């Protein structure tokens, strides 16, 4: 009999304790970010899709060695380069990233010995078409210069 009432009262008490906690939470300030109206700044190490780093002359630092292409687990990078007449170094002619298959692992950035690629801070990416994610990073670099 004692246990019966004890169960009822302790049970009821635990319910009141719980209600007390949610009541306190009710008056605490809100913690959510109201997204389209405000947004959080990305951290310095945020891994967006990759982009080319411009050198001092504005040209990409890439020497078309193809290490990133090889390192990529999902084969989403394809680069092209050619050796202009009279030049010793190869020049990058195209750097295509298929972002639909990229898993943002960073192998390409790791593997680059020339510091030519980095992560961008892009995170507001949305589209209904697959083709929108086939990036031409060289074009992107030129656009960013303007």
């Amino acid at each position, binding site marked *: 009999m004692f246990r019966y009432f004890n169960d009822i009262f302790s049970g009821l008490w635990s*319910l009141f*304790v*719980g209600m007390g*906690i949610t009541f306190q939470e009710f008056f605490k300030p809100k913690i959510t970010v109201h997204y389209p109206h405000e947004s959080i700044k990305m951290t*310095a190490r945020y*891994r967006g899709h990759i982009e080319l780093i411009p050198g001092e002359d504005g040209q990409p630092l890439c020497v078309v060695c193809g290490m990133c292409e090889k*390192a990529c687990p999902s084969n989403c990078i394809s680069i092209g380069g050619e050796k202009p007449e009279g030049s010793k170094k190869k020049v990058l002619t195209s750097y295509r990233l298929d972002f639909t298959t990229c898993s943002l*692992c960073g192998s390409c950035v*790791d593997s680059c010995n020339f510091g030519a690629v980095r992560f961008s801070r892009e995170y507001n990416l949305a589209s209904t078409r697959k083709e929108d994610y086939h990036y031409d990073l060289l074009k992107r670099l030129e656009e960013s210069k303007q």
Partner: protein
Amino acid sequence: MSEPIVLQPDETFILNVGPQHPATHGVLRVKMTMDGEFIYNAETVIGYIHRMHEKMAENRTYAQYMPNLSRLDYLSAMAYCHGYVLAVEKAASIEVPERAEYIRAITVEMNRISSHLVWFGAFVMDLGGFSPLMYAFDDREQILDLLEAVTGSRLTYCYFRFGGLYNDVDDDFIEGTRRFIKRMRKSLKMYHKLVTTNVILMKRLIGIGPVSVDLCQRYGATGPVARGSGINYDVRRNEPYSVYPEFDFDIPVYNEGDSFARYKVRMEEMEQSLRIIEQGLDKLPDGPVNPEKKPKTIKLPAGDYYTAVEAGRGSFGIRIVSDGDKSPYRLKLRSPTYSNMHLFDEACRGMLIADALAFMGSLDLVIPEMDR
């Protein structure tokens, strides 16, 4: 529900729980043969998001396979990466700087807390309480923010490298983590007051879904499921790896074997993880996080290697069979939920559907990890 229930096999109907059902957290399907609200028999159907990670391994180099590990268990990705890098390092005899090992342990434990927090929220939501999920996610956000600042990613970290780390932690991280430990201790107290001692929750969990030691042994259950059944088994203790022997922490074990025991094990594990992180931050040595000389391409000597680590849900094992090439000959991932879920079929017989779903929640399922 102590007395056994006699079920009438000729008056049953089949209830398809899943693949899309609010309680299955992903695409798990359980074909339940029901007698009224009682489960007569259950057959779990998995494989809806099977991606054949093991075949992928055979076509990639060891380094290229790294991102796959984060995609097994998206909630505690760090521990799976840890298992993989440990396996490869062991086989290829790569030395790891001490600082890197400490940072690995710290981040893995933080990830374990975040994984348990998701489980906590989702589990209470399975039981019908919605607010604890939001509080848990609030705390989890703090962890994710800290980890994002270090690794650059919130979920699929891909932070470890063979022999070291992707990059070093900074003072902000250490300070932020200390702040977080204080905050988390307070929140855990709040969870205990709000949820653990709640009479409705106790009524729903105590005595529900008993898992015996024998059942664990036959199905190979590990992690909190085994520890809730009185089995003192934690890979961090039984087979110490990394720098875990340096830490002073307890393995919570409960003998009841019911859902509430599993619940308490996980709640206490969070506290123990906080202790590990705290000690790790205190002991964190200076030095590099990557070895000075790293082999360019990793090739393992022929043979087969087995490594187990304690992931958020139990013992995660990885078996690499190498033939000396730069990609594995065969790579087997032993995921803990796979074994833990398997015992559901046998254990849930005779349960009410509401209890069975609470039981399923207490097993802490992550479907991508199970399906691999």
